[in-house]
């Protein structure tokens, strides 16, 4: 079966030689929930905007539902639903009116529009608030309405750009549940971006790890984590011996796959974490280093991310203010 989304060498260069997306290639199968995981500014939204025909690629090709995004943009638009990170609902209209407008823009016949509006309102749990102005909605309700609008025309592919950005954890879980139910009930393909590793882990069938405009790895979350080769041991040390010395002795342990120093901690990936731990303590005694704190856990996607890129997912989010400014800046260069 041919993939429903295909990208080949997809590249976007913004004025000033800013390479936002750098020769990205991937394929998404029908019915998958596929996620792009990466920090802000990694090129996730820019990729979505190329796939939804909002930005023209500088180089490369992409096909969505069998149509070329550059040569057949109108066919592509008719096949997809797009929910941006902006909460793009009209606050002056009621929830119902927002959906009536959406139905109009997607050329749904009147009867069918009425039926589907009732359906999606029920699906996102907003039926009782449909006649209220969106102004009076909470952030989570707005997001749900926005997703409902994206679903209304039963697109072949639903694009969700940072679907839970800025939402509290409870609302976030709710959104995840809606997305999963949706796929279970309709078999719709979902392409989403996120910088929450938990979201990628719990929601996505497959994840593409994107860093500085490039795809570094693609796979099932479990595969990616297994690819690390075992468990993750995190050490906080007193700092008596030098980092290079510590790293060297730790690497000599046979069951240790990798050692990285990140954020003041040594992060070790190793087979059989429980059995490796005593060996780690022994090795540290050789260099007269003392352990301040230690944790042993199953690897998360964040550890995968760290192992692949050498950086944490949170590196690019210094503060909320910076994140906002970054978004405004990115929007300005993108638009």
């Amino acid at each position: 079966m041919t993939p429903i989304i295909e990208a080949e060498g997809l590249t976007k260069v913004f004025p000033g030689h800013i390479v936002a997306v750098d020769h990205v290639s991937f394929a998404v199968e029908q019915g998958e929930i596929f996620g792009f995981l990466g920090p802000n500014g990694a090129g996730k939204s820019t990729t979505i905007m190329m796939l939804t025909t909002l930005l023209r690629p500088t180089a490369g090709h992409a096909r969505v539902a069998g149509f070329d995004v550059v040569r057949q943009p109108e066919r592509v638009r008719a096949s997809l639903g797009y929910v941006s990170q902006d909460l793009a609902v009209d606050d002056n209209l009621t929830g119902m009116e927002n959906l009536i407008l959406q139905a109009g823009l997607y050329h749904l016949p009147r009867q069918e529009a009425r039926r589907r509006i009732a359906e999606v309102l029920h699906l996102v749990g907003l039926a009782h608030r449909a006649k209220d102005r969106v102004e009076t909605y909470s952030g989570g309700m707005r997001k749900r309405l926005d997703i409902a609008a994206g679903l209304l025309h039963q697109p072949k592919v639903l694009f969700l750009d940072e679907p839970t950005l800025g939402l509290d954890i409870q609302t976030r879980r709710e959104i995840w549940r809606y997305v999963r139910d949706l796929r279970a009930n309709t078999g719709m393909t979902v392409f989403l971006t996120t910088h929450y590793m938990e979201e990628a882990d719990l929601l996505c069938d497959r994840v593409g790890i994107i860093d500085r405009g490039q795809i570094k790895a693609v796979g099932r979350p479990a595969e990616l984590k297994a690819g690390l080769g075992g468990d993750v041991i995190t050490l906080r040390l007193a700092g008596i011996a030098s980092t290079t010395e510590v790293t060297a002795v730790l690497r000599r342990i046979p069951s240790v796959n990798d050692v990285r120093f990140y954020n003041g901690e040594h992060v070790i990936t190793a087979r059989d974490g429980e059995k490796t731990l005593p060996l780690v303590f022994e090795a540290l005694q050789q260099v007269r280093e003392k352990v301040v704190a230690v944790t042993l856990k199953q690897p998360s996607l964040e550890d995968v991310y760290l192992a692949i890129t050498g950086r944490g997912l949170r590196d690019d989010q210094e503060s909320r203010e910076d994140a906002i400014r970054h978004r405004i800046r990115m929007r300005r260069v993108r638009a």
Partner: protein
Amino acid sequence: MKLPALLVDSYWVFWREMKRLLVQRARIAIAAVQPLIWLILMGNAMGGLTANPTTARLLGTQNYLEFMTPGIMIMSTLFGGVFGGISVIWDRRTGFLNKMLAAPIKRAAIPVGKITAISLQSVVQVTFIAAIAAAMGVHFATGVPGFLLLLCIMILFSYGIAGISLALASVLRSHEALMAVTNLLTLPMVFASNAIFPREAMPTWLKTIATYNPLTYAITPLRTLVLEGWVWEKIWPGLLAMGLFAFVAVMVSARQFARSGA
């Protein structure tokens, strides 16, 4: 096939704009009060001018309000139109513009729908002004048929101005820049036209500017319809110019929106 799709898509954009307008009561109130202030203020302040027979001859009427009414109509339409682009910038900031651009609509429907909504608001406003003016004793030389033609010219002028505003908004991308450019152009455009003062009373250099000002093209036929009657040789050049102005401006803004994205 192509035309109906554009019409249907434009209708939905228009529908949204009207819904938005109807919930913003303050906007409606201001749209009603503003021309009222103009009429009363200008009518009273400048009313004395017509006591001077030379001025009365230049104005072409004994009643300054009669001279001013078409000017106030056109200014209301002008101000309604020039700020049309603001809604595009707002839509861009909230992400709604991208939502519309990602929908399978004719992209030209976005400017066409928005401009049509602006134009309809102007029609309502101008009708309101006409009613007030009539109540204040302004006599319309060509009656109701003349007023309908006046509305047609006003619609074309509104399409032209709003079209330019939307095209500018698609380039400028910020409220501040759009406001600055708009302010830079609007007031000189008003004063260098025969909206408030008759062209005959202007110094030669200003007269030259006023002659080529699109505002003058719009006002001359309006004023003729209000003050003089069916003097076609003074009506058709303006009507033609407005038709051309509207066509070009709408085409330019449609092109701007069609080009955005892939």
